[in-house]
């Protein structure tokens, strides 16, 4: 309990650490004349990021945008720090922006890409280390996640990534995952009840996946960023019942993503993000399961001043018989927050639709989630939840309430990048 309090204090201090001081910078009334990169290794940034730097020219100085771009340059170059400074421009009332890159590219970086604690599901997280050699990166990670799927999966992951395969518009990555699974009693009970009528796999003890993926940058710059990823996933898992045996779900994987940011006059900004992914398992790849899993999502963000409104729409459908890890769930830390996924559908569903509307003012956040999960042939039941939270620099703490009759138990969530 004491550690929980300590963690809360640490988290609160991080959440409150950010503030809009830079908006009070007297130089925000000046216009950006030019943007330069200086320092240790400024040449290696992508053409997309270089385009975003160029777009600052001619606009009023926006310190928040400079901070954001400095972070992105640092991440892209894997350097210790990227700072920025301003100099007087050649023309009156104009300033020059100079990003200074400090430190040689890091050979090794350790990070925590995901960490979330839910009062009803415990802790989920991923810790990984990445060694970078030129444009190639080797990552090794340890994960325990009871938030994403119907099961809690724990184990290791490894990834090889080449960020420039002949051209900087083609990237390659190879993922390997090996997990041990833990199951909730509600899931095993539901499987027992359905018996042979179940249109999914049984529970499994272990699961391994090998997934090579090639990503093509179809479009970048002012019209937006569009990526197409194509690859395959070779997934093997060891079923426990009725007898221990190894099954496979080998699938072709395709993902198309589009992102666009539109900055209008003043401080208004609109952002679009949309994606569609398809996982098609077929016996041609030696799969024991044949199915197609479609998933699409659209996100729209409108920001003005310190306020932001966001809408996220996600929908998915599975045709055929898919294993449990492919099935959709609601009632976790991102979808239909406040509900317990084992109360909604302990096996997940093969149809899902979900929408979130969120309003943020500075670090304060209120949200309204609605969604339905069901199986083909059933009638969907729409459910709702509301919540409040604090969000800053990827850190998030929230309290979510399911909207339903009878006893309501709120769910507390705290973490980052979830």
């Amino acid at each position, binding site marked *: 309990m004491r550690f929980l309090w300590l963690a809360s204090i640490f988290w609160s201090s991080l959440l409150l650490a950010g503030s809009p001081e830079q908006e009070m910078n007297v130089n925000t009334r000046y216009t950006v004349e030019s943007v330069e990169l200086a320092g240790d290794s400024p040449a290696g940034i992508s053409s997309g990021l270089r385009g975003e730097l160029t777009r600052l020219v001619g606009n009023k100085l926006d310190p928040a945008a400079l901070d954001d771009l400095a972070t992105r340059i640092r991440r892209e170059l894997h350097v210790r720090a990227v700072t920025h400074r301003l100099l007087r421009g050649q023309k009156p009332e104009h300033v020059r922006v100079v990003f200074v890159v400090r430190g040689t590219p890091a050979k*090794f970086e*350790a990070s925590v890409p995901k960490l979330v604690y839910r009062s009803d599901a415990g802790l989920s997280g991923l810790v990984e280390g990445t060694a970078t050699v030129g444009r190639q990166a080797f990552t090794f990670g340890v994960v325990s996640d009871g938030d994403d799927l119907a099961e809690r999966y724990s184990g290791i992951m490894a990834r090889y990534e080449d960020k420039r395969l002949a051209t900087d518009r083609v990237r390659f990555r190879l993922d390997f995952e090996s997990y041990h699974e833990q199951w909730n009693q509600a899931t095993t009970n539901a499987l027992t009840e359905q018996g042979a009528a179940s249109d999914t796999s049984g529970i499994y003890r272990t699961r391994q996946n090998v997934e090579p993926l090639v990503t093509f940058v179809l479009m970048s710059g002012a019209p937006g960023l569009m990526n197409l990823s194509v690859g395959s996933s070779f997934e093997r898992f060891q079923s426990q019942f009725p007898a221990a045996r190894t099954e496979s779900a080998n699938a072709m994987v395709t993902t198309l993503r589009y992102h666009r940011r539109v900055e209008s006059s003043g401080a208004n900004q609109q952002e679009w993000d949309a994606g569609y992914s398809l996982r098609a398992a077929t016996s041609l790849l030696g799969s024991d399961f044949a199915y197609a899993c479609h998933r699409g999502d659209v996100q729209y963000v409108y920001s003005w001043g310190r306020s932001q409104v966001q809408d996220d729409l996600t929908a998915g459908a599975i045709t055929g018989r898919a294993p449990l890890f492919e099935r959709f769930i609601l009632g976790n830390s991102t979808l239909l927050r406040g509900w317990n996924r084992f109360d909604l559908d302990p096996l997940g569903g093969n149809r899902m639709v979900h929408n979130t509307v969120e309003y943020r003012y500075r670090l304060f956040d209120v949200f309204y989630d609605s969604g339905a999960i069901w199986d083909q042939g059933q009638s969907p039941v729409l459910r709702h939840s509301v919540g409040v939270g604090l969000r800053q620099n*990827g850190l998030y703490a929230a309290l979510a309430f399911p909207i339903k009759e009878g006893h309501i138990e709120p769910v507390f969530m705290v973490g980052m990048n979830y």
Partner: protein
Amino acid sequence: MARAKRDPEATETITRRGWLLAGLALPLSRAWSAERLDVTWDGDDLHVAAPQLHFLVGKPLNRLQDGLAVVFLTQLTLTTDNFTTSLRRTPDRFVFSYDLWEEKFSVTKLGEGQRTVSHLSAAAAEAWCLDNVAISSTGLPQDRPFWLRFELRAAEPKDEAAVIGDAGLNLTRLIEIFSRRPRDQQPQWIAEAGPLRLGDLRRLAGRAARTL
């Protein structure tokens, strides 16, 4: 118990321990040496001034001249027992920036009643900052001695962006931050006054004394 007689010559020499203590005390005394604080009273609040205290120097000044905004955190502490325990504290935050074209400073006091001034010289900006900190004298008898301490430090430039980003928490960067040597920390300034009595203080014009 009888004490061993000390050699009279030994008192003339400085021991290694003495050198060590002196070596440690010198930088500490530099860091913590308090400037003198001028205190006035308007009947409700105590106001301070420290014309000899200059904090727009060094790293914070360099950052300002690079066109960045710098946050200064201040705290005024009132005690009645020579800083053993504090009777009252008032923390404040000020955002300073430097106009690259006009070569003048702008200061914003954050919080309730946020206000901004611009076109100030360095000395005027420093003075405005001190003019805008005050501490209530409520409950302090006119004849009771009290002490005031003014502390000011520049906030660290934000590191959160580097530590936490889209890729999550960067442990390597976090270790770097916790491994920093103390000399890399932001400078701080202190000014003190006391013992003082309300009855002895110069009264600011325009405010009536409150019945205590």
